[in-house]
């Protein structure tokens, strides 16, 4: 019997999402934290496409497409913010950027 159970795609998506959350929490470099967010978005896209297969509808692909567009916009703005932060602070370590503390 060939073929992959649908649930395996969903589990892979969950594993990738959890790894993204873990990276978001344990990394200290602001760029790596940002890349972890991209990993989470990718994991969600995989489950959209898997459900799209199961329901035999293209709508899931459209949502994946919109997620990609929003991710591109987010990457552009986010990296510009990172540039501005680095220019003002001279560091990329998130625990050194703490002027909103106390």
């Amino acid at each position: 019997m060939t073929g992959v159970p649908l649930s395996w795609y969903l589990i892979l998506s969950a594993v990738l999402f959890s790894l993204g959350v873990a990276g978001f929490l344990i990394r200290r470099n602001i760029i790596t934290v940002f890349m972890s967010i991209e990993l989470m978005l990718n994991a969600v896209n995989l489950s959209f496409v898997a459900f799209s297969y199961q329901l035999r509808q293209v709508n899931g692909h459209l949502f994946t497409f919109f997620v990609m567009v929003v991710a591109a916009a987010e990457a552009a703005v986010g990296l510009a913010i990172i540039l501005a932060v680095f220019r003002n602070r001279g560091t990329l370590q998130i625990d050194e950027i703490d002027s909103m503390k106390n």
Partner: protein
Amino acid sequence: MDLVLFLTFAVVAVGCAINLVLQRHPISAAISLIGVMASLAVLYLLLGAEFIAAVQVIVYAGAIMVLFVFVIMLLNAEAEGKTGRSLVARYVGLPSLFLFLSLLGFLIHALYPSSERTTFGGFTGGTAENVGRLLFTDYLLPFEVTSILILVAILGAVILARKEAD
């Protein structure tokens, strides 16, 4: 054949994702993320989403990651320093991650029994023609809103990244 391809690229994706989380240097993390995205593109192809697979390679692995690598190079980002990890993170974080994942796996298996199997070619609706037709009929308004979003993002990025002219 489907199973072999799925397992190969799923292992590559998870391995690259683990490498992303564990690497200290941002450029190694970026390379791992490109690996994740490329193997996800193969999985999209297996699920019959050929347009999305192409866009994944062109937009994600291409444009967005070039932007990331460019910023890493521009800022001369170096490996992050070691910080004192809390004991809670070490002794509670990892077990709770495994607990969460096994709970989720159990739930997914209970909700979606493995009777439904996906095969390559079982769904061929993801061509550029079908996606484009739906994009310009049912999803026309979201599509136009996205174009405004992109415009705002470009303007915002230019204004944020510009040097302050005092």
